[in-house]
């Protein structure tokens, strides 16, 4: 077929399937935090990418420490936890000082968080320099896994995939199996009523926002295995993040997963058969088309507005 042997085509299909899954987990990690902040709270957080950058720089800094003290093989798991804690804490602070004053003015939130993202970018630039840096990766994250001599499965891809699964599972536990999740969902559905039954909605807002930021931090840490880190790294991810969340239907976490999967598979298959940029164009056109028919996204939520 097309001058290639069946074995070759089989191998490529395996690797191509993996490329699609790998892109799916990247998109999912990007979008999960935003799905909580934008989807559940309705806050348009333009600084979301910068919270990823916080996670990425945390990893880079820790990797330097790890190289200096010789624990390169173990630091990465640790880095992910620190990235989460740090991004969570900063998110908490941002909610307290900025976001909570703007809940009733969504467009002002957009402007304020965009300003915040510029401020954060400049802080990164001033403290870490304008040049892009890379984290020193542990041996076990490098290279590829070869089930047969002709198939290479990138290990960093497997790692990101595993992490995406863990984080998604964690978010589901939190949202649907915990007291906190119950309060969050109650607040989203009816703020006044939730307040009336004794839920501290302000506190719920703060923790929800911080949680979204924390997940962004984890995503940022994971992305150091795929790409580099610079002051403006976050801007690379923000558009894709919003696209996944909006396409999935803003208020639905399940929608976010489905949309990340759909977009990733479409893009990776189209990019294989067309050129890379045309593949992207075709994917975006499809999304625009579907959104025109279903403005609420794939999974519209039945929330009373």
């Amino acid at each position, binding site marked *: 077929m097309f001058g290639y042997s069946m074995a070759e085509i089989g191998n490529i299909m395996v690797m*191509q399937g993996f*490329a699609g899954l790998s892109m799916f987990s990247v998109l999912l990690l990007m979008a999960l935090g935003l799905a909580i902040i934008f989807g559940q709270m309705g806050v348009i957080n333009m600084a979301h990418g910068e919270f990823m950058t916080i996670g990425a720089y945390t990893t880079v800094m820790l990797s330097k420490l790890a190289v200096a003290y010789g624990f390169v093989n173990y630091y990465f798991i640790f880095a992910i936890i620190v990235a989460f804690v740090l991004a969570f804490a900063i998110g908490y602070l941002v909610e307290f000082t900025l976001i909570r004053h703007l809940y009733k003015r969504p467009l002002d939130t957009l402007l304020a968080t965009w300003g915040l993202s510029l401020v954060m970018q400049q802080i990164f630039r001033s403290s870490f320099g304008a040049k892009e840096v890379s984290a020193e990766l542990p041996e076990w994250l490098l290279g590829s896994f070869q089930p047969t001599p002709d198939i*290479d499965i*990138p290990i960093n*891809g497997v790692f990101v995939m595993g992490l995406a699964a863990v984080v998604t599972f964690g978010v589901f536990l939190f949202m649907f199996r915990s007291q906190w999740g119950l309060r969050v969902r109650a607040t989203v559905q009816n703020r006044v009523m939730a307040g009336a039954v004794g839920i501290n909605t302000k506190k719920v807002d703060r923790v929800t926002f911080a949680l979204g930021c924390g997940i962004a931090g984890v995503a940022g840490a994971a992305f150091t295995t795929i*790409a580099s880190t610079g002051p403006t790294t976050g*801007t690379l991810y923000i558009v894709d993040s919003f696209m996944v969340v909006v396409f999935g239907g803003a208020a639905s976490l399940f929608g976010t997963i489905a949309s990340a999967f759909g977009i990733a598979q479409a893009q990776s298959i189209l990019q294989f058969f067309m050129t*890379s*940029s045309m593949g992207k164009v075709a994917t975006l056109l499809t999304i625009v088309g579907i959104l025109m028919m279903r403005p609420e996204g794939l999974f519209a939520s039945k929330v009373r507005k």
Partner: protein
Amino acid sequence: MSTNDRRRFMTKVGALTGALLAVSMVSGMGSAFAEDFPTAKVNTTKLAVTDKTVKVGILHSATGTMAISETGSIQAEKLAIAQINEMGGVLGRKIEIIQEDGASDWPTFAEKSKKLLENDKVAAVFGCWTSASRKAALPVFEKDNGLLFYPTFYEGLEQSKNVFYTGQEATQQILAGLDWIAKEKKAKTFYLIGSDYIWPRTSMKIARKHIEQHLGGKVVGEEYIALGDTQFGSVINKIKLKKPDVIYAAVVGGSNVAWFKQLNAAGLNSSKQTMLTISVTEDEVLGIGGENLAGFYSAMKYFQSLKNPNNEKFVADFKKMWGPKAVIGDVTQAAYLGPWLWKAAVERAGSFDVDKAVVALPGYELKTAPEGYVKVDPNHHLWSKLRIGKWRADGQADVVYESELIKPDPFPKGYQ
């Protein structure tokens, strides 16, 4: 020779002797020398030139996406200017820098150019990096008759009275490199991949013509990646299927790092795949990581590891000024040439006037260039060599090939 001509001739001789003197002079004596060139005479176009100083502009992105790349150019230009000032300045006048930030935003480059030329009246500007920023600033320079020294290797297809291009135009970077890899690696099939904007697209067009018409090779794939895209899974699989002898790459920015990391993770390292790139310098290696690059080739005119006395001094001076960890890439070196070429132009003309300096520069040979030797062509580009560097894991390159001096040809016939 009429009296008038003779007088002009004598002024020129005076200027040249003055220039020679300036080189040997130490700072402090500069002011005495400036008296040989009265301000009224060397500046008839109301530039910011006084008896003691001359203002120039530096216009790069210190903030925004491009700051990663442009910082090195700013540093190199400041180093050159500091060194020129130490030697007594230009025509006895100390250079004062007015630095503006293009902020990675192309219209800002045009605005700031206007400010530098119309308000500050600078005698020259060292700046711009991306082609987009240069294209935005160019009309301003042409309208206000400014003088721009542009450092980046770029796609060619441009020539302006008001600009000197100190980097390579496309053919200088592409043709000799492809010749080398075709001969050295017996390469017949090529896979072209670049970021999706004018420079990679023009470069790949030239590369494809050269491969198909002059090398008898075949292009088995041509691919452009959206700027900032970091997912290369599908592209890498396509490359695995096509098995090209050589990947010819011009991926830039954040994508570049992702490209090399994923290529390695997918098992396509230099032991399995030959790659020649025209978009990786020492600056990019910092982000990509030497271990992901080791064994791949770059085609550039300059590498930090070049062994010649000019370069050893340049590297030492650069590190002294900007710290021992500073690395120097191709464009940084080209940016360093700008102030020196401007100094030569002004001294050859005996005047800061742009019209006079511009005609005085072509034909000039800069023998102190870190890259070795460059000559200014009448088409405002530089004659330079092409070198192929093989990357080491420590982020430096071993130069494995060096071409003859190549004449710049911004409008190559048969390649458009």
